[in-house]
Protein backbone atom coordinates (compact mmCIF):
# COMPACT_ATOMS: atom_id res chain seq x y z
CA UNK A 1 0.00 0.00 0.00
CA UNK A 2 2.74 2.39 0.96
CA UNK A 3 4.57 1.71 -2.30
CA UNK A 4 1.47 2.54 -4.29
CA UNK A 5 0.92 5.75 -2.34
CA UNK A 6 4.55 6.70 -2.81
CA UNK A 7 4.39 6.03 -6.53
CA UNK A 8 1.29 8.24 -7.01
CA UNK A 9 2.93 10.99 -4.96
CA UNK A 10 5.97 10.71 -7.19
CA UNK A 11 3.67 10.75 -10.26
CA UNK A 12 2.12 14.00 -9.05
CA UNK A 13 5.51 15.62 -8.43
CA UNK A 14 7.00 14.62 -11.77
CA UNK A 15 4.00 14.89 -14.15
CA UNK A 16 1.41 16.96 -12.29
CA UNK A 17 -1.17 14.12 -12.49
CA UNK A 18 -2.92 14.48 -9.16
CA UNK A 19 -4.63 11.30 -7.86
CA UNK A 20 -4.97 12.16 -4.18
CA UNK A 21 -7.31 9.22 -3.55
CA UNK A 22 -4.25 6.94 -3.66
CA UNK A 23 -2.12 8.76 -1.10
CA UNK A 24 -4.39 11.10 0.89
CA UNK A 25 -6.20 9.02 3.48
CA UNK A 26 -9.11 11.46 3.81
CA UNK A 27 -9.71 11.57 0.06
CA UNK A 28 -9.34 7.82 -0.15
CA UNK A 29 -11.95 7.20 2.53
CA UNK A 30 -14.35 9.65 0.87
CA UNK A 31 -13.88 7.95 -2.48
CA UNK A 32 -14.40 4.47 -1.01
CA UNK A 33 -17.49 5.67 0.82
CA UNK A 34 -18.88 6.94 -2.47
CA UNK A 35 -18.04 3.67 -4.16
CA UNK A 36 -19.74 1.68 -1.40
CA UNK A 37 -22.82 3.92 -1.53
CA UNK A 38 -23.12 3.44 -5.29
CA UNK A 39 -22.88 -0.33 -4.86
CA UNK A 40 -25.42 -0.27 -2.04
CA UNK A 41 -27.83 1.94 -3.98
CA UNK A 42 -27.47 -0.26 -7.08
CA UNK A 43 -27.96 -3.49 -5.13
CA UNK A 44 -31.09 -2.26 -3.33
CA UNK A 45 -32.67 -0.92 -6.51
CA UNK A 46 -31.69 -4.02 -8.47
CA UNK A 47 -33.35 -6.46 -6.08
CA UNK A 48 -36.39 -4.32 -5.33
CA UNK A 49 -37.00 -3.36 -8.97
CA UNK A 50 -36.83 -7.00 -10.11
CA UNK A 51 -39.38 -8.03 -7.46
CA UNK A 52 -41.66 -5.07 -8.10
CA UNK A 53 -41.24 -5.46 -11.87
CA UNK A 54 -42.24 -9.14 -11.77
CA UNK A 55 -45.19 -8.32 -9.56
CA UNK A 56 -46.28 -5.51 -11.90
CA UNK A 57 -45.96 -7.80 -14.93
CA UNK A 58 -48.16 -10.30 -13.12
CA UNK A 59 -50.72 -7.58 -12.40
CA UNK A 60 -50.64 -6.55 -16.07
CA UNK A 61 -52.06 -10.00 -16.84
CA UNK A 62 -54.79 -9.80 -14.20
CA UNK A 63 -58.34 -10.80 -14.97
CA UNK A 64 -59.61 -7.60 -13.34
CA UNK A 65 -59.57 -4.68 -15.76
CA UNK A 66 -59.02 -2.05 -13.06
CA UNK A 67 -55.92 -3.85 -11.77
CA UNK A 68 -54.57 -4.18 -15.30
CA UNK A 69 -55.15 -0.50 -15.97
CA UNK A 70 -53.49 0.56 -12.71
CA UNK A 71 -50.42 -1.56 -13.44
CA UNK A 72 -50.20 -0.19 -16.97
CA UNK A 73 -50.64 3.35 -15.69
CA UNK A 74 -47.73 2.89 -13.30
CA UNK A 75 -45.51 1.63 -16.12
CA UNK A 76 -46.48 4.49 -18.45
CA UNK A 77 -46.00 7.14 -15.77
CA UNK A 78 -42.48 6.07 -14.87
CA UNK A 79 -41.38 5.23 -18.38
CA UNK A 80 -42.58 8.46 -19.91
CA UNK A 81 -41.23 11.04 -17.44
CA UNK A 82 -37.61 12.13 -16.96
CA UNK A 83 -35.82 10.23 -14.15
CA UNK A 84 -34.36 13.42 -12.70
CA UNK A 85 -37.82 14.99 -12.46
CA UNK A 86 -39.06 11.86 -10.70
CA UNK A 87 -36.21 12.03 -8.23
CA UNK A 88 -36.84 15.73 -7.52
CA UNK A 89 -40.54 15.03 -7.15
CA UNK A 90 -39.95 12.39 -4.50
CA UNK A 91 -37.29 14.31 -2.60
CA UNK A 92 -38.60 17.87 -2.79
CA UNK A 93 -42.37 17.36 -3.21
CA UNK A 94 -43.08 14.22 -1.18
CA UNK A 95 -40.11 14.40 1.20
CA UNK A 96 -41.30 17.41 3.24
CA UNK A 97 -44.73 15.78 3.70
CA UNK A 98 -43.28 12.93 5.73
CA UNK A 99 -43.40 13.30 9.53
CA UNK A 100 -40.11 14.00 11.26
CA UNK A 101 -38.79 11.62 13.91
CA UNK A 102 -36.78 13.39 16.61
CA UNK A 103 -36.17 16.38 14.36
CA UNK A 104 -34.74 14.16 11.60
CA UNK A 105 -36.59 13.36 8.36
CA UNK A 106 -38.01 9.86 8.34
CA UNK A 107 -36.36 9.14 5.03
CA UNK A 108 -32.99 10.53 3.97
CA UNK A 109 -31.80 11.28 0.47
CA UNK A 110 -30.49 7.74 0.02
CA UNK A 111 -33.90 6.32 0.96
CA UNK A 112 -35.66 8.55 -1.56
CA UNK A 113 -33.14 7.66 -4.23
CA UNK A 114 -33.78 3.95 -3.62
CA UNK A 115 -37.54 4.46 -3.91
CA UNK A 116 -37.38 6.69 -6.97
CA UNK A 117 -34.90 4.58 -8.94
CA UNK A 118 -36.62 1.34 -7.93
CA UNK A 119 -39.94 2.55 -9.30
CA UNK A 120 -38.29 3.75 -12.51
CA UNK A 121 -36.44 0.50 -13.12
CA UNK A 122 -39.42 -1.62 -12.05
CA UNK A 123 -41.48 0.02 -14.80
CA UNK A 124 -38.90 -1.05 -17.39
CA UNK A 125 -38.45 -4.48 -15.82
CA UNK A 126 -42.22 -5.02 -15.89
CA UNK A 127 -42.27 -4.39 -19.65
CA UNK A 128 -39.40 -6.82 -20.15
CA UNK A 129 -41.03 -9.49 -17.98
CA UNK A 130 -44.35 -9.01 -19.77
CA UNK A 131 -42.69 -9.60 -23.13
CA UNK A 132 -41.00 -12.70 -21.69
CA UNK A 133 -44.25 -14.08 -20.32
CA UNK A 134 -45.96 -13.53 -23.67
CA UNK A 135 -43.13 -15.42 -25.37
CA UNK A 136 -43.92 -18.62 -23.45
CA UNK A 137 -45.79 -20.89 -25.87
CA UNK A 138 -49.49 -21.35 -25.12
CA UNK A 139 -48.94 -25.11 -25.55
CA UNK A 140 -46.62 -25.19 -22.51
CA UNK A 141 -49.32 -23.65 -20.34
CA UNK A 142 -51.87 -26.10 -21.73
CA UNK A 143 -49.54 -29.01 -20.90
CA UNK A 144 -49.08 -27.78 -17.34
CA UNK A 145 -52.81 -27.20 -16.86
CA UNK A 146 -53.61 -30.66 -18.17
CA UNK A 147 -51.29 -32.14 -15.54
CA UNK A 148 -53.43 -30.54 -12.84
CA UNK A 149 -51.22 -27.58 -11.95
CA UNK A 150 -52.96 -24.70 -10.22
CA UNK A 151 -52.74 -21.24 -11.81
CA UNK A 152 -50.01 -20.24 -9.37
CA UNK A 153 -48.06 -23.43 -10.08
CA UNK A 154 -48.30 -22.91 -13.83
CA UNK A 155 -46.86 -19.42 -13.37
CA UNK A 156 -44.16 -20.37 -10.86
CA UNK A 157 -43.00 -23.68 -12.33
CA UNK A 158 -43.41 -23.18 -16.07
CA UNK A 159 -44.11 -19.62 -17.20
CA UNK A 160 -41.64 -17.78 -14.97
CA UNK A 161 -38.61 -20.06 -15.52
CA UNK A 162 -39.11 -19.95 -19.29
CA UNK A 163 -39.87 -16.21 -19.39
CA UNK A 164 -36.76 -15.52 -17.30
CA UNK A 165 -34.56 -17.19 -19.87
CA UNK A 166 -36.09 -15.20 -22.71
CA UNK A 167 -35.65 -11.92 -20.84
CA UNK A 168 -32.02 -12.31 -19.76
CA UNK A 169 -30.36 -10.17 -22.48
CA UNK A 170 -32.89 -7.34 -22.11
CA UNK A 171 -32.65 -7.56 -18.33
CA UNK A 172 -28.87 -7.18 -18.47
CA UNK A 173 -29.35 -3.94 -20.40
CA UNK A 174 -31.80 -2.77 -17.78
CA UNK A 175 -29.42 -3.48 -14.90
CA UNK A 176 -26.57 -1.68 -16.65
CA UNK A 177 -28.87 1.29 -17.10
CA UNK A 178 -29.78 1.15 -13.44
CA UNK A 179 -26.16 1.41 -12.31
CA UNK A 180 -25.57 4.37 -14.61
CA UNK A 181 -28.76 6.07 -13.48
CA UNK A 182 -27.67 5.97 -9.83
CA UNK A 183 -25.46 8.99 -10.65
CA UNK A 184 -28.68 11.05 -10.75
CA UNK A 185 -28.80 10.70 -6.97
CA UNK A 186 -26.01 13.31 -7.05
CA UNK A 187 -28.77 15.87 -7.57
CA UNK A 188 -30.25 15.22 -4.13
CA UNK A 189 -26.86 14.97 -2.40
CA UNK A 190 -26.71 11.22 -1.93
CA UNK A 191 -23.03 10.59 -1.09
CA UNK A 192 -22.53 8.21 -4.03
CA UNK A 193 -19.52 7.89 -6.29
CA UNK A 194 -20.11 10.95 -8.47
CA UNK A 195 -21.02 13.17 -5.51
CA UNK A 196 -17.96 12.19 -3.50
CA UNK A 197 -15.70 12.53 -6.54
CA UNK A 198 -17.06 16.03 -7.15
CA UNK A 199 -16.23 16.94 -3.57
CA UNK A 200 -12.71 15.71 -4.03
CA UNK A 201 -12.10 17.50 -7.33
CA UNK A 202 -13.48 20.79 -6.12
CA UNK A 203 -10.99 20.79 -3.25
CA UNK A 204 -7.99 19.31 -5.03
CA UNK A 205 -8.72 20.87 -8.41
CA UNK A 206 -8.01 17.58 -10.18
CA UNK A 207 -11.12 17.42 -12.35
CA UNK A 208 -9.70 15.53 -15.38
CA UNK A 209 -8.01 12.93 -13.17
CA UNK A 210 -11.14 12.26 -11.11
CA UNK A 211 -13.26 12.08 -14.27
CA UNK A 212 -11.04 9.31 -15.61
CA UNK A 213 -11.20 7.52 -12.26
CA UNK A 214 -15.00 7.82 -12.32
CA UNK A 215 -15.31 6.42 -15.83
CA UNK A 216 -13.04 3.50 -15.02
CA UNK A 217 -15.01 2.83 -11.82
CA UNK A 218 -18.30 2.57 -13.71
CA UNK A 219 -16.75 0.42 -16.42
CA UNK A 220 -15.62 -1.93 -13.64
CA UNK A 221 -19.01 -2.10 -11.90
CA UNK A 222 -20.92 -2.58 -15.14
CA UNK A 223 -18.31 -5.09 -16.29
CA UNK A 224 -18.93 -7.20 -13.21
CA UNK A 225 -22.69 -7.10 -13.78
CA UNK A 226 -22.18 -8.16 -17.39
CA UNK A 227 -19.98 -11.04 -16.31
CA UNK A 228 -22.44 -12.24 -13.69
CA UNK A 229 -25.35 -12.02 -16.12
CA UNK A 230 -23.42 -13.87 -18.81
CA UNK A 231 -22.55 -16.58 -16.34
CA UNK A 232 -26.18 -16.79 -15.24
CA UNK A 233 -27.38 -16.92 -18.83
CA UNK A 234 -24.99 -19.75 -19.61
CA UNK A 235 -26.04 -21.62 -16.49
CA UNK A 236 -29.73 -21.30 -17.25
CA UNK A 237 -29.31 -22.21 -20.91
CA UNK A 238 -31.18 -25.37 -21.83
CA UNK A 239 -30.66 -27.29 -25.07
CA UNK A 240 -33.14 -26.40 -27.78
CA UNK A 241 -34.77 -23.45 -26.06
CA UNK A 242 -34.34 -19.75 -26.75
CA UNK A 243 -31.29 -20.04 -29.00
Amino acid sequence: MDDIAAWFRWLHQTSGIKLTIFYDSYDRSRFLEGFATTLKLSAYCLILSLLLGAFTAWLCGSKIAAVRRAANGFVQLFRNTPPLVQLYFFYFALGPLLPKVGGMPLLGSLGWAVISLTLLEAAFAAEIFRAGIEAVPRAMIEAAESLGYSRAQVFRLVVLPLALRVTMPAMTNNLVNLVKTTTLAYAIAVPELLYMSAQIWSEQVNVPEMMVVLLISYVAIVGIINQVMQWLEARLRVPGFGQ
Partner: protein
Amino acid sequence: MSDAGLDAPIVPIVRIVDVHKSFGAVEVLRGISLAVNRGEAVCVIGPSGSGKSTLLRCINGLIPVDRGEVFVGAHAVHKLRADQEMIALRKDVSIVFQQYNLFPHKTALENIMMAPIQVLKQSKEEVEARAHELLKKVRLAGKENSYPGELSGGQQQRVAIARALAMRPSVMLFDEVTAALDPETRKEVLVTIRQLVEEGMTSILVTHEMAFAREIAHNVYFTDHGVIVEEGTPAQLFGSPQKERTRAFLEQVL
Protein backbone atom coordinates in the same frame (compact mmCIF):
# COMPACT_ATOMS: atom_id res chain seq x y z
CA MET B 1 -55.93 -49.48 -12.08
CA SER B 2 -54.67 -52.98 -12.89
CA ASP B 3 -57.37 -55.17 -11.37
CA ALA B 4 -60.21 -52.66 -11.03
CA GLY B 5 -61.85 -53.82 -14.26
CA LEU B 6 -62.37 -57.48 -13.34
CA ASP B 7 -65.39 -57.33 -11.05
CA ALA B 8 -66.65 -53.86 -11.89
CA PRO B 9 -69.80 -53.72 -14.01
CA ILE B 10 -69.23 -52.33 -17.47
CA VAL B 11 -70.28 -48.70 -17.34
CA PRO B 12 -68.83 -46.06 -19.62
CA ILE B 13 -66.03 -44.23 -17.82
CA VAL B 14 -66.20 -41.46 -20.41
CA ARG B 15 -69.59 -40.39 -21.72
CA ILE B 16 -70.11 -37.48 -24.06
CA VAL B 17 -73.65 -36.43 -24.88
CA ASP B 18 -74.59 -34.05 -27.69
CA VAL B 19 -71.62 -31.75 -27.26
CA HIS B 20 -71.49 -28.45 -29.14
CA LYS B 21 -68.61 -26.02 -29.39
CA SER B 22 -68.05 -22.92 -31.51
CA PHE B 23 -65.06 -20.66 -31.87
CA GLY B 24 -66.54 -17.33 -32.92
CA ALA B 25 -68.73 -18.07 -35.91
CA VAL B 26 -67.10 -21.44 -36.59
CA GLU B 27 -69.04 -24.42 -35.28
CA VAL B 28 -66.36 -26.99 -34.52
CA LEU B 29 -68.47 -29.59 -32.68
CA ARG B 30 -72.10 -29.92 -33.71
CA GLY B 31 -73.62 -32.50 -31.42
CA ILE B 32 -71.12 -35.24 -30.71
CA SER B 33 -71.91 -38.24 -28.53
CA LEU B 34 -69.67 -41.11 -27.64
CA ALA B 35 -69.01 -43.53 -24.80
CA VAL B 36 -65.88 -45.36 -23.72
CA ASN B 37 -65.91 -48.30 -21.35
CA ARG B 38 -63.24 -48.88 -18.75
CA GLY B 39 -60.25 -50.63 -20.24
CA GLU B 40 -61.25 -49.94 -23.82
CA ALA B 41 -59.40 -48.07 -26.52
CA VAL B 42 -61.41 -45.84 -28.80
CA CYS B 43 -60.04 -44.24 -31.93
CA VAL B 44 -61.46 -41.08 -33.45
CA ILE B 45 -60.59 -40.67 -37.11
CA GLY B 46 -61.58 -38.11 -39.70
CA PRO B 47 -60.27 -35.34 -41.93
CA SER B 48 -58.27 -32.44 -40.51
CA GLY B 49 -60.40 -29.69 -39.06
CA SER B 50 -63.26 -32.01 -38.18
CA GLY B 51 -63.02 -31.08 -34.49
CA LYS B 52 -61.18 -34.15 -33.21
CA SER B 53 -58.58 -32.30 -31.13
CA THR B 54 -61.22 -29.94 -29.76
CA LEU B 55 -63.24 -32.96 -28.66
CA LEU B 56 -60.29 -34.34 -26.67
CA ARG B 57 -59.74 -30.96 -24.99
CA CYS B 58 -63.38 -30.87 -23.95
CA ILE B 59 -62.89 -34.15 -22.10
CA ASN B 60 -60.18 -32.83 -19.74
CA GLY B 61 -61.69 -29.35 -19.51
CA LEU B 62 -58.97 -27.49 -21.42
CA ILE B 63 -61.82 -26.21 -23.60
CA PRO B 64 -65.26 -25.58 -22.03
CA VAL B 65 -68.21 -26.93 -24.02
CA ASP B 66 -71.00 -24.61 -25.17
CA ARG B 67 -73.76 -27.18 -24.88
CA GLY B 68 -74.09 -30.86 -24.01
CA GLU B 69 -72.67 -33.06 -21.30
CA VAL B 70 -69.26 -34.60 -20.64
CA PHE B 71 -68.84 -37.18 -17.90
CA VAL B 72 -65.54 -38.70 -16.85
CA GLY B 73 -66.03 -41.14 -13.99
CA ALA B 74 -67.68 -39.07 -11.26
CA HIS B 75 -66.77 -35.74 -12.83
CA ALA B 76 -69.45 -33.79 -14.70
CA VAL B 77 -66.91 -31.88 -16.77
CA HIS B 78 -69.45 -29.50 -18.38
CA LYS B 79 -70.42 -28.24 -14.93
CA LEU B 80 -66.95 -27.70 -13.48
CA ARG B 81 -66.22 -24.08 -12.65
CA ALA B 82 -63.93 -23.97 -9.63
CA ASP B 83 -60.20 -24.43 -10.19
CA GLN B 84 -60.08 -27.14 -7.52
CA GLU B 85 -62.71 -29.25 -9.32
CA MET B 86 -60.83 -28.87 -12.58
CA ILE B 87 -57.59 -29.99 -10.94
CA ALA B 88 -59.36 -33.05 -9.51
CA LEU B 89 -60.54 -33.97 -13.02
CA ARG B 90 -57.07 -33.59 -14.48
CA LYS B 91 -55.62 -35.95 -11.90
CA ASP B 92 -57.84 -38.62 -13.49
CA VAL B 93 -57.32 -37.74 -17.15
CA SER B 94 -53.93 -37.35 -18.82
CA ILE B 95 -53.33 -36.05 -22.31
CA VAL B 96 -50.45 -36.51 -24.72
CA PHE B 97 -50.07 -33.81 -27.35
CA GLN B 98 -49.05 -33.82 -30.98
CA GLN B 99 -46.09 -31.52 -30.25
CA TYR B 100 -45.07 -33.37 -27.02
CA ASN B 101 -45.04 -30.09 -25.04
CA LEU B 102 -42.38 -31.24 -22.60
CA PHE B 103 -41.03 -28.53 -20.32
CA PRO B 104 -37.76 -27.56 -22.05
CA HIS B 105 -36.01 -26.43 -18.86
CA LYS B 106 -36.45 -29.76 -17.12
CA THR B 107 -34.73 -33.08 -17.81
CA ALA B 108 -36.70 -36.13 -18.92
CA LEU B 109 -36.78 -37.42 -15.35
CA GLU B 110 -37.80 -34.05 -13.90
CA ASN B 111 -40.56 -33.69 -16.51
CA ILE B 112 -42.03 -36.96 -15.27
CA MET B 113 -41.54 -36.19 -11.57
CA MET B 114 -42.87 -32.63 -11.39
CA ALA B 115 -46.62 -33.18 -11.44
CA PRO B 116 -46.75 -36.17 -9.02
CA ILE B 117 -44.70 -34.15 -6.52
CA GLN B 118 -46.38 -30.77 -7.03
CA VAL B 119 -49.95 -31.86 -7.74
CA LEU B 120 -50.35 -35.28 -6.09
CA LYS B 121 -48.01 -34.32 -3.21
CA GLN B 122 -46.29 -37.70 -3.33
CA SER B 123 -42.89 -38.18 -1.74
CA LYS B 124 -39.85 -37.49 -3.88
CA GLU B 125 -38.32 -40.95 -3.33
CA GLU B 126 -41.50 -42.73 -4.34
CA VAL B 127 -41.96 -40.54 -7.40
CA GLU B 128 -38.36 -40.88 -8.49
CA ALA B 129 -38.45 -44.67 -8.30
CA ARG B 130 -41.62 -44.70 -10.37
CA ALA B 131 -40.20 -42.23 -12.89
CA HIS B 132 -37.24 -44.56 -13.49
CA GLU B 133 -39.68 -47.43 -13.92
CA LEU B 134 -41.75 -45.47 -16.41
CA LEU B 135 -38.72 -44.45 -18.45
CA LYS B 136 -37.80 -48.12 -18.62
CA LYS B 137 -41.33 -48.93 -19.70
CA VAL B 138 -41.15 -46.50 -22.62
CA ARG B 139 -37.66 -47.89 -23.34
CA LEU B 140 -35.76 -44.72 -22.50
CA ALA B 141 -33.68 -45.94 -19.57
CA GLY B 142 -30.41 -44.00 -19.66
CA LYS B 143 -32.05 -40.78 -20.91
CA GLU B 144 -33.02 -39.61 -17.40
CA ASN B 145 -30.83 -36.54 -17.48
CA SER B 146 -31.35 -35.52 -21.09
CA TYR B 147 -33.20 -32.30 -21.79
CA PRO B 148 -36.08 -32.44 -24.28
CA GLY B 149 -33.95 -30.49 -26.76
CA GLU B 150 -31.44 -33.33 -26.73
CA LEU B 151 -34.01 -36.00 -27.57
CA SER B 152 -35.52 -36.99 -30.91
CA GLY B 153 -39.22 -36.37 -31.54
CA GLY B 154 -40.09 -39.98 -30.88
CA GLN B 155 -38.10 -40.01 -27.65
CA GLN B 156 -39.72 -36.77 -26.50
CA GLN B 157 -43.14 -38.20 -27.22
CA ARG B 158 -42.36 -41.29 -25.16
CA VAL B 159 -41.21 -39.09 -22.27
CA ALA B 160 -44.51 -37.23 -22.65
CA ILE B 161 -46.37 -40.54 -22.39
CA ALA B 162 -44.36 -41.45 -19.28
CA ARG B 163 -45.13 -38.00 -17.82
CA ALA B 164 -48.84 -38.59 -18.39
CA LEU B 165 -48.68 -42.10 -16.89
CA ALA B 166 -46.89 -40.85 -13.79
CA MET B 167 -50.18 -39.30 -12.71
CA ARG B 168 -51.75 -42.81 -12.69
CA PRO B 169 -54.70 -41.56 -14.71
CA SER B 170 -57.91 -43.51 -15.25
CA VAL B 171 -58.11 -42.27 -18.83
CA MET B 172 -55.44 -41.37 -21.37
CA LEU B 173 -56.09 -39.01 -24.26
CA PHE B 174 -53.79 -39.10 -27.28
CA ASP B 175 -53.98 -36.15 -29.66
CA GLU B 176 -52.43 -37.18 -32.99
CA VAL B 177 -49.32 -38.14 -31.08
CA THR B 178 -47.47 -39.47 -34.13
CA ALA B 179 -48.42 -36.73 -36.60
CA ALA B 180 -45.21 -34.77 -36.09
CA LEU B 181 -42.92 -37.80 -36.28
CA ASP B 182 -41.08 -39.51 -39.11
CA PRO B 183 -42.09 -43.08 -40.00
CA GLU B 184 -39.29 -44.69 -38.05
CA THR B 185 -39.81 -42.89 -34.73
CA ARG B 186 -43.58 -43.17 -35.19
CA LYS B 187 -43.29 -46.89 -34.77
CA GLU B 188 -41.56 -46.69 -31.38
CA VAL B 189 -44.36 -44.49 -30.07
CA LEU B 190 -47.08 -46.75 -31.46
CA VAL B 191 -45.47 -49.78 -29.85
CA THR B 192 -45.59 -48.00 -26.50
CA ILE B 193 -49.26 -47.09 -26.90
CA ARG B 194 -50.21 -50.59 -28.03
CA GLN B 195 -48.60 -51.97 -24.88
CA LEU B 196 -50.65 -49.59 -22.74
CA VAL B 197 -53.88 -50.53 -24.47
CA GLU B 198 -53.08 -54.22 -24.05
CA GLU B 199 -52.56 -53.60 -20.34
CA GLY B 200 -56.10 -52.23 -20.19
CA MET B 201 -55.49 -48.49 -20.05
CA THR B 202 -58.66 -46.70 -21.05
CA SER B 203 -57.59 -44.63 -24.04
CA ILE B 204 -59.09 -42.22 -26.50
CA LEU B 205 -56.91 -41.69 -29.52
CA VAL B 206 -57.34 -39.09 -32.20
CA THR B 207 -55.26 -40.48 -34.99
CA HIS B 208 -54.47 -40.65 -38.68
CA GLU B 209 -52.84 -44.05 -38.25
CA MET B 210 -55.58 -46.17 -39.83
CA ALA B 211 -53.73 -49.47 -39.64
CA PHE B 212 -52.96 -48.86 -36.01
CA ALA B 213 -56.54 -47.89 -35.20
CA ARG B 214 -57.79 -51.01 -36.93
CA GLU B 215 -55.40 -53.14 -34.93
CA ILE B 216 -55.86 -51.83 -31.38
CA ALA B 217 -59.25 -50.09 -31.15
CA HIS B 218 -62.33 -51.63 -29.59
CA ASN B 219 -64.40 -48.96 -31.29
CA VAL B 220 -63.74 -46.47 -34.05
CA TYR B 221 -65.58 -43.19 -34.59
CA PHE B 222 -65.44 -41.40 -37.92
CA THR B 223 -66.03 -37.64 -37.56
CA ASP B 224 -66.49 -35.00 -40.19
CA HIS B 225 -67.54 -31.36 -39.86
CA GLY B 226 -68.15 -31.65 -36.14
CA VAL B 227 -70.47 -34.65 -36.17
CA ILE B 228 -69.95 -38.38 -35.88
CA VAL B 229 -70.72 -39.81 -39.28
CA GLU B 230 -70.32 -43.45 -38.35
CA GLU B 231 -69.11 -45.65 -35.53
CA GLY B 232 -68.43 -49.32 -35.09
CA THR B 233 -65.86 -51.96 -34.41
CA PRO B 234 -62.74 -51.70 -36.56
CA ALA B 235 -63.95 -54.67 -38.59
CA GLN B 236 -67.27 -52.95 -39.32
CA LEU B 237 -65.97 -49.47 -39.95
CA PHE B 238 -62.94 -50.36 -42.01
CA GLY B 239 -64.37 -53.60 -43.47
CA SER B 240 -67.83 -52.53 -44.52
CA PRO B 241 -68.47 -48.84 -43.94
CA GLN B 242 -72.16 -48.00 -44.24
CA LYS B 243 -71.99 -44.30 -45.10
CA GLU B 244 -70.84 -42.88 -48.40
CA ARG B 245 -68.78 -40.18 -46.62
CA THR B 246 -66.90 -42.82 -44.63
CA ARG B 247 -66.18 -44.86 -47.73
CA ALA B 248 -64.88 -41.80 -49.58
CA PHE B 249 -62.59 -40.87 -46.66
CA LEU B 250 -61.22 -44.37 -46.25
CA GLU B 251 -60.57 -44.67 -49.99
CA GLN B 252 -58.54 -41.47 -49.76
CA VAL B 253 -56.36 -42.52 -46.84
CA LEU B 254 -55.96 -46.26 -47.20
